[in-house]
């Protein structure tokens, strides 16, 4: 009896198990809806990876504009974005903005590194290869420049690295800056001159962008001669000029890619689902959590070139917006000024008291928002400018001023600053006419710094300027605004009373550098110490 049973058992097992014995590939499954970079083989693979590198600029769509809201230009009271911790000077290694910036820059670096590593093995025309390489070098330099500016010494990865290389130590800032400058020199060589791109290449990095970034990096790290020389090279390209409509440059897409723009983030209207539209219109126009500060507003001169606290300036505190630097109205939505249009086209005006969810300062922001288009909401296509010619001019002036023999360059410095001051449509008085020719180095320094502040307000550069000028104690002060409840719907009864609505003092313990994010500290054990104060 048992014999029969065992036979059946064996047969059954045989019949059962046999089919899989010969099919060892049953457990081999290949990814079906994505590819790995090891498979790069065509020029198009490289172009896609390069486009993806540009996309890293959009990874944080509020960057770099949101940086102005932790300075003395503005404040954002949204708890969830984390800027308020930096504003309050209570930031820690787990503060969200520190991680956001870190991840955004390193994402860009990985993508640029991926292009740079694989491009050498992909056959294509040499000129194309050079251009793509130049673009990737430029972008990598841009991301590293931002990192060393904000964090100081950082891990320096120059090719794509995986989990097995997760430990990477901080490298001294100066070494990285050297590498950035070298890369940018190379990129400037490879990249086409500005104005040569057209159609669906408009907005790619150019020779001008590489040189302007080089100037910026050199200037930020006080390599004055290099900075001045790079600025000069940009000017010598002969392509760039100041755009005659300051307001239009930041309002809507009509003025995009104009000759003042050196490099920008190319946003597109109605592409929120692709992450290619930003929401500054919503933040600035619909919400009140982003506020401009009186601290900034008061530093706009009268149109006659005099500061408002100069008794001879003609400033009238009861009609504070009259007779001011035109850039004030182009930068701010001031009380009683145009606040957009209804869909039907009727003009809406801004009355602070009407905004129940409180704009504490009564001051709102106009830059980056197309207030003429009532239908665009969270899907703005305004390009965010990262480098523009006015910046190059003022950087040049600053570099010359800080070099040992600044007096030799005095006329050139005046010329450069005046170009910006008197840009078409703004036409503020020249230095010679308002401050006079008999000025000290420190006077000129103040002039340049003031000019930078009013020219580039809400463009994301103020925080870096505060850091490199080491003016924390004077910049990180209380938030001052105009009391909104006194600004009623009747402009004639408006009372402009300033008050401090949020207090702070500069936290010298934390200095100017941002914390290396907690995540990095935890997972990258090669980093042993965070920046001081964290």
């Amino acid at each position, binding site marked *: 009896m048992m014999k029969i049973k065992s036979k059946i058992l064996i047969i059954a097992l045989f019949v059962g198990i046999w089919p899989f014995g010969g099919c060892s590939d049953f457990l081999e499954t290949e990814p079906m809806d994505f590819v790995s970079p090891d498979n790069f083989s065509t020029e198009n693979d490289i172009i896609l990876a390069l486009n993806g590198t540009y996309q890293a600029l959009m990874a944080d769509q509020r960057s770099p504009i949101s940086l102005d809201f932790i300075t003395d230009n503005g404040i954002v009271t949204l*708890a969830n974005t984390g800027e308020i911790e930096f504003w309050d000077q209570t930031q820690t290694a787990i503060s*969200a903005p520190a991680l956001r910036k870190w991840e955004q820059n390193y994402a*860009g670096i990985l*993508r640029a590194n*991926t292009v740079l590593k694989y491009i050498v093995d992909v056959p294509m025309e040499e000129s194309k290869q050079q251009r793509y390489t130049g673009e990737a070098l430029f972008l990598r330099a841009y991301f590293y420049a931002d990192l060393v500016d904000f964090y100081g010494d950082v891990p320096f990865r120059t090719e794509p690295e995986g989990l097995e290389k997760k430990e990477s130590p901080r490298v001294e800032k100066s070494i990285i800056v050297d590498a950035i400058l070298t890369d940018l020199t190379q990129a400037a060589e490879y990249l086409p001159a500005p104005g040569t791109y057209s159609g669906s290449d408009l907005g790619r990095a150019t020779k001008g962008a590489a040189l302007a970034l080089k100037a910026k990096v050199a200037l930020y790290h006080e390599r004055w001669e290099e900075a001045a020389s790079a600025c000069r090279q940009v000017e010598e390209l002969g392509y760039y000029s100041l755009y005659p409509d300051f307001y239009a440059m930041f309002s809507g897409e009509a003025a995009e890619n104009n000759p003042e723009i050196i490099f920008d983030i190319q946003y597109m209207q109605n592409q929120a689902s692709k992450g290619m539209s930003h929401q500054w219109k919503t933040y600035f126009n619909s919400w009140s959590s982003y506020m401009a500060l009186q601290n900034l507003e008061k530093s706009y001169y009268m149109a006659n070139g005099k500061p408002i606290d100069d008794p001879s300036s003609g400033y009238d505190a009861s009609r504070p917006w009259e007779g001011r630097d035109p850039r004030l109205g182009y930068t701010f939505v001031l009380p009683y000024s145009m606040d957009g249009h209804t869909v039907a086209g009727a003009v809406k005006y801004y009355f602070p008291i009407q905004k129940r969810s409180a704009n504490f300062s009564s001051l709102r922001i106009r830059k980056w928002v197309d207030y003429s288009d009532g239908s665009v909401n969270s899907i703005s296509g305004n390009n965010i400018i990262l480098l523009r010619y006015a910046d190059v001019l003022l950087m040049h002036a600053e570099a010359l001023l800080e070099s040992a023999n600044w007096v030799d360059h005095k006329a050139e410095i005046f010329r450069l600053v005046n170009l910006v001051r008197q840009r078409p449509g703004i036409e503020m008085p020249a230095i010679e006419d308002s401050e006079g020719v008999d000025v000290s180095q420190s006077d000129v320094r103040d002039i340049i710094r003031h000019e930078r502040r009013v020219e580039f307000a809400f463009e994301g550069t103020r925080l870096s300027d505060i850091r490199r000028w080491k003016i924390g104690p004077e910049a990180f002060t209380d938030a001052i605004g105009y009391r909104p409840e006194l600004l009623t719907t009747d402009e004639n009864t408006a009372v402009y009373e300033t008050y401090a609505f949020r207090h702070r003092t500069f936290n010298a313990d934390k200095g100017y550098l941002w914390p290396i994010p907690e995540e990095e500290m935890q*997972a990258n054990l090669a980093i042993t110490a965070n920046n001081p104060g964290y």
Partner: protein
Amino acid sequence: MKYYRTVFRRVLLSCPQVLRALVIKCMLIIVLSANVHVAAFAMSYSVGPWTENGTQAKKIEGRVTDADGTPLAGVTVAVKGTPAVAVTDEAGAYRIVVPEGGTVLVFTIVGFAPLERVIRDDAVVNVSMTISMSDLEEVVVVGYGTQKKINLTGAVDNINLGDVEDRVLTDASQILQGKSSGVLITQVSGQPGRDQADVRIRGVSSIDNNSDPLIIIDGVESALSDVNPNDIASISVLKDASAASIYGNRAAGGVLIITTKQGRSGLDVNYVGTISLQEPTRIPEAASSTEFARAYNEGRLNSGLPIGYTDEEIQLFEEATLPEYKGVNLYDEYFSNALTNNHYLSARGGQPSKFDFSVSGGYLDQDGILVGTDQRKISYLANVNTYFLEGKLKVSGRLLGYERKMSELDKSTEGILQTIGSTRSTAYFKSTSGLYSYPAINYSSYVNGGGTFRSNSNLKYQLGLELKPVESLTWAMMYASTGNSQDFTRFSPNQYTAGSVFDEDGVYRPSSINLQRSYSSLTTFNSTVRFDESFAERHNISALLGYEAIAFKAEGFGARGTDLSANLPILSLADPASIAPIDITNAERTSLSFFGRINYNYNEKYLLEANIRRDGSSRFMLGKRWGTFPSVAAGWVLSKESFLSSMDWLDLLKIRGSWGLLGNSGIGTNYAASDILSAGLDYNFGGTIVPGTAISLLANRNTTWETTEQLNIGIDLSVLNRLSININYFDKKTSDILARITIPGSLGISGTPYQNVGTMTNKGIELGVEYNNSPAKAFQYRINGNVSYQKNRVVDIGPLPYIFHSAISGYAPPAGVIRSVVGESFGSYFGMVADGIYQIDDFTWQNNSDPSIDFYDRDFELKENHANPSGIIQSPMPGDIRFKDLNEDGIIDDGDQQIIGKPLPDYIYSLNLNGRFKNFELNILAQGVLGADAYIMGAMVTPFWNGTGSISKEMYENRWTPDRPSETWQRLYDDRTRSGLISSYYLQNAAYLRLKNITLGYAFNPGLLRRLNVKSLKLFFSVENLFTVTRLNKGFDPEKSFNRITSDFHPQIRTTALGLNIGL
């Protein structure tokens, strides 16, 4: 037979590629439809009485009663060794035709000891059966087979399904609540179609991956939603390693084995219908418009800001006559009571050793309490078995499926609840011209035909062969294929919303659409050989050997568009401005497994069991791919020992223990070993979109499964045929936990790959008690209760001291609130410790604290003896939360945070009462948890949450004010920077006791029904979630997901149902 044999030989000898090919599918359909035809034919035949082999047969009839003479219905009467079988009717009467050679009648029914009677010449055989309280003969479904309960050595719970038919259950997962010790069921929503409960057997054992149990329905991996609750014949909960390890690397979260109902002899047609009313159990109550306006002014003053409403405006809100001062309660606008219809019809029958069938269909029509939500679900099941070769070969076919349509508003339900909780009572809902306000845009979409529409169809077809060439050997083979298709459409029409209450034109809102279509299939093939034999009457051996191959494939695509030219949910490629690029997803995985089991017992006294499974998974790289999961178990039935045999009152005393390894390969990726280059990282140059790619996830080539080692010790006790107790102690340790732990951001990837890093333990004790009174009494009752204690500890997370869990919410508070910290319980809450509320006495102000100064004119300074909280809350005032200075440095800051609570409960308990008196039947089920915390902040909980939130009446009535210095409620403030402040102030005790179900049934007397040709008729009244005892804030439910820490969750529903159950 020849036909079957050749086809199967061909199939089995060919490769799996061929298995997956059309050939077998076609063959299956042929076999299946052949089965259905046979069954249908037989069904029509079975309606009339049939005779067996004509003239030679002998007829016996009789009556079956219990010991007290009460008739027993539903007793199976069989002639041993022959296919003849009959079932007693309501009067206990049966009639059976005994085929030639029949010598013994066997009477069986659950709950009574089987009885045999030798057939003599009597034409009438009346028997009385005695109760077998301990259900010792009960057979329990285990992995790839069944086992007698007495012989079990593992921790297996067999769920009592007695009351399921009379409850309004919309998902099979709801059956489990309160039914098995050590099993935590959390139903986090009452939304139609999204009310599936989370099932956690013996705790959470994985960090990022699913801790869900493996669900096996009729031998195939499935989801609980796949089956209609009424179709379930049995549910076994496999809790320990010895029971579950036969399922290898899928079983770490325990296993639920479900079998569906099969046909029996004869023909039973059954209809169950219910109609029920649903209402929210707990819903937040918003402050009225005047209350809100006052509260808002107070909050503004408290934050040093101008007030928002003048006294005149408040007066106008009070009067509520002008359109702009009417006020609104969005909870009233969005929630209302709703109806559910549930119908279920089944026909089961068969003829012993020839065929049996069970076909059923269910229809559920459920409207949600939240506007725009509903579900319609049709579910069906056909089980058909046919027998050949004198019953030695069983061919079975099965179809199990459902079709479901679900809808909700055009934003996620959580988003809607967030909107509702963030809309001020002073706002308006509709303008005077009938346009909806912007916050009500989703309501407006609903009115204009928008919404989220999901339709889902799931079909499993299955073929089984079971060959028993000799009594002791069974070879079984099963092939099943489950196809699931899902359509998702979210559509918002072109519409206008009101800009103000008097707005007539409205603001244009362009339409948008999001379409997702996906299809997945799961194919399972397994083959087992089972051997059962007894030697020398005492040595009982059974053995099982088998293998299983599973292939899973998923594909999908999605497309989005905006500003559609046709204002309909149609996405046309011809619609110029609208299309976003199409997303395509594709994935597949396979697994191959070999397994075996040996059971040995000596005289059913000494029990031994060993299991082993070897699993290979395509998810892992070669070298990390194969894993072995063994287990061993032993049991000792002391009550069978001679030294205890004198104790008549002792029915059963068994001690058992088990040890084994289980795995979890259920990670969220099928390709852990590949770098993933993602597309869709597009950019635009000069106004033209250019496609872009980037590495989005790094490969981890070392990924492998998680391993859970589990020890179980149990005692089963049954005394006096009345009381049974079972106790389990378990110690579960999961290591190599796959977690997506932080990688350095400097690698350039924010997506974190899986790494095997963690270790976690779960220990606990489970106790189940059941008591029945004498079945002979007119009033019969059964009480059973269970309670379990569980303790979870995170032991290790690789290099990290803790990891964060992200919160699910539109407005996530700062990261790190929910974290798994080494040494603490999984997913604990982390934050400041609230230590009451600052009172006026804690402050000084001008003029040596001159009390005559108006409260709002005082410049409050905290007294010296208080730690300085100004880094956390700007300018603290009386009424603010006082935080503990944990590190005692005099400053309240981030250093003063600690674990403040945990979502996993210490105790899970339930009590089930079942009483029967004459025609009445009463069922009560209560369940709850103890020792759990809920963290709830957000709209209606935090004052003016994020600057926009409304406030609840409860907050309004209890808030701190100078005149009512509360010790527990903070003051109001309008300061959104405080909205993200994490502290134990928002931590609430989530212990609860819920009267889950109460059902009262009335069964009509069979005598009355016989005249109507009706076998049985029962009317019942049933209430789900009648009440809940909890200390949570009003309006919020203690049953919630641990990572939903904001208040935007859909309430649970109370369902009051009337039902009817007819048997024909």
